[in-house]
């Protein structure tokens, strides 16, 4: 057993424990509880002591008893150095330290005497630390979005750190912002527009893309190679260089402020990626199946509908979901083309809400939840398809 290894073990373990406690404390602070000190010095040193004790006890005690004992020790220590905190806070500390001691149970004397054990330990903790930190950093804005939408302006100004949700006030009061957003700010209408535009884009894109992708994947014609490279190049052209000419053309044709105009632009911009993704999949379907179709006397249309489509349903669903996501989240074109509130999409409506006169932030966040939730639900539910869509089409963004 090397001294260096023991030292790194205690040091890194305690640091990890401390960072877990920090995240817990931040979350507790956001419940409106007054907590102004992380107590770095005390907690860190006590953490080191406990890690050393853990090492000393080794396997002399039953594992579960040891875990509970150490966790209890830590929570009691924390309870004494901080004052006036509710019991559920200490219970959280207890659970976190239980989790932590469970994680370091493998680092015994044996492990620490091996080669590279301090590096291995470091990376194991880095992974754990990374997972915690990444989840926290990613989920925190979403969490704030949700809880802000349940508060009222007065409460938010009174204590900007109090995001506790008061369930006692009843559901209508809790969801007040949502009622207002739908009733006074017309979000029902915007949601309908967004749904129509997104679904419309998906359907039209597929109608255009499936035949074209089939032709590129299977048929021989002059200019095929040129076409397939152009698809990729066109795909890399960003919306910002199209905005001014499209704006001028659309204003002169009277296509601004119309859902049709938006549908045309969305379809055209998602078409290259849809063709690109689909033709890759069509190429992987065995040619023999189509040849059998030709012998049966099918024409091209029959082959596409009866052989290709049923076989490539997974690819088509991932293209459809990906296109839906792009259309639902799209902002630049809806900003440029829509300036009458009766044609707004959800994204545009939220931007309008923010730019307009001092809109209370809980309404803004309620609107944000309304636009975010459907896409997250779809993502979690159809994750398999969307992830493959994202990977295939991820040149875009």
């Amino acid at each position, binding site marked *: 057993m090397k001294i260096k290894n023991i030292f790194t073990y205690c040091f890194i373990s305690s640091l990890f424990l401390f960072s877990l406690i920090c995240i817990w404390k931040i979350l507790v602070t956001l419940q409106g509880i007054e907590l102004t000190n992380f107590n770095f010095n005390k907690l860190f040193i006590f953490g080191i002591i406990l890690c050393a004790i853990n090492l000393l006890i080794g396997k002399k005690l039953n594992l579960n008893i040891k875990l509970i004992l150490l966790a209890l020790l830590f929570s009691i220590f924390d309870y004494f150095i901080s004052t006036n905190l509710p019991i559920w806070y200490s219970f959280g500390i207890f659970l976190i330290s239980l989790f932590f001691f469970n994680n370091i149970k493998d680092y015994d004397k044996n492990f620490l005497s091996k080669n590279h054990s301090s590096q291995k330990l470091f990376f194991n903790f880095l992974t754990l630390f990374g997972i915690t930190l990444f989840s926290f950093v990613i989920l925190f804005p979403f969490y704030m979005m949700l809880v802000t939408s349940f508060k009222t302006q007065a409460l938010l100004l009174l204590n900007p750190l109090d995001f506790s949700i008061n369930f006692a006030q009843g559901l209508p009061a809790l969801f007040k912002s949502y009622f207002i957003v739908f009733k006074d700010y017309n979000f029902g209408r915007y949601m309908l527009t967004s749904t129509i535009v997104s679904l419309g884009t998906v359907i039209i894109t597929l109608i255009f893309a499936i035949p074209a992708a089939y032709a590129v994947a299977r048929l021989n*014609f002059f200019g095929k190679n040129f076409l397939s490279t152009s698809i990729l190049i066109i795909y890399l052209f960003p919306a910002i260089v199209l905005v001014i000419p499209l704006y001028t053309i659309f204003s002169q044709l009277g296509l601004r402020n119309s859902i049709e105009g938006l549908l*045309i632009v969305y379809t055209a911009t998602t078409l290259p990626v849809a063709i690109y993704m689909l033709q890759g999949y069509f190429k992987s379907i065995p040619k023999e199946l189509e040849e059998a179709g030709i012998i049966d006397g099918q024409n091209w249309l029959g082959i596409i509908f009866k052989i290709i489509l049923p076989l490539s349903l997974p690819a088509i669903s991932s293209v459809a979901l990906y296109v839906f996501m792009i259309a639902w989240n799209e902002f*630049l074109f809806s900003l440029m083309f829509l300036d009458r509130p009766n044609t707004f999409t959800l*994204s545009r409506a939220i931007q309008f809400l923010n730019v307009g006169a001092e809109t209370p932030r809980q309404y803004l966040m309620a609107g944000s939840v309304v636009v975010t939730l459907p896409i997250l639900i779809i993502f979690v539910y159809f994750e398999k398809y969307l992830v493959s869509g994202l990977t295939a089409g991820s040149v875009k963004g």
Partner: protein
Amino acid sequence: MSSKLAKIEKRTAYLLILPSVLLVFSIILFPIFSNIWISFKNVELKDLRIPEPRAKKLVKSIKDNPTQIKIIYKLRNSSLTQEITNVKFKDKYPDNIEPISLNNKCQFKSNLLKCELGNWPKKYRENLEIVFQNTNNQEISKKELKSYKPKLSGKSQNILLTYEFTLNNFKKVIKDKAFIDLLSTTFYYTFFGTIGAIVFGILAAQMVNQKFFGRTFMRSVLLFPYVAPVVALAYTWELLLDPTSGTLNNLLINYQIIDGPINLLGQKYVTLNILGFDFKLRLALTTVIIFEIWRYFPLAFLFILARLQAVPKELYEAADVDGANPIQKFLNITLPQILAVISILFMIRFIWNFNKFEDIFLLTGGASGTRTLPINVYQQGFSIGDIGMGSAVSIVIVVFLLIFMFIYFKLLGKRADEN
């Protein structure tokens, strides 16, 4: 026989791709070319409205004579800047009504009043008064007269279709003192945003590539910032970072980490003292880059994770036998395996970040030193209203883009050769 089949095949292929090609051509390629056209013209936002001849019809009864009626047409040119030529006027009247007298511009034939009103200069206004009488000496109903609306037509020059060109837009773009600053901001944002996203992507992929409880859930969560709508995320961040009521500043003050609030999105520079040297950090730009990294590292993560999962396990097992430590394993096995993915990823993200508009627009609107080229396109074209200038700036973007694409396809070709 086979040549006939080939012919049919060719025809079918063209038929199948034609709708897509037409749509993409008219909505993507045509605009890119018209960008070049517009950038050489002096066009402003207000010029985009096509001038229209307009008429307002007023019906006035004449005192003591119900069988006669006076019609006044208030005519005007809707445009403040352009002339309308060859204006023609048409209005319909009920039966048994005819004008008492007409000027030489107008004609009345079978219930139709037709006038040739000639050329109208900009801001032109004129009143046309005509008295009508009932041929049967009956009372004229005002209501019926009002129900017909006059129709006008005229020719005007569309400023977009003239052959007058100017180099002024490009001169203005290049001579602008802020142009160098604009370019450097764009490259700073693009470069650090891309590098950051890739570094965090590698870290996240390394993490998720190990087995732990809740791994699939973790993979979904990591993709949340990428799939959620940018509008919602940008405004949430704005509220989080707000100097007075934002959560982040209040948390930091609460834990006595900072003394006073920091305006992370509204302050251009912050002076950092590192080892006795003062560094000027572009604060708002850095915040915007952090948002950018937060939102796009999931993509790098997804790509790299897919590659990592394809790395043969035997390589790591062999390294274990050789007694390699984790850093050696990462540097000598993992990194070479994912290097190709990283280079492709770098180019793609570089191209997309270079054109990123929404994120900066929603967070800062281009203020406090975050004005990049795409933001400038919007500001020139729509805030200032100079469409020609906006187009010229987007041409600058296209030129850079073509250079990047050239490099990207070179890289892609090289990679295809290697495989």
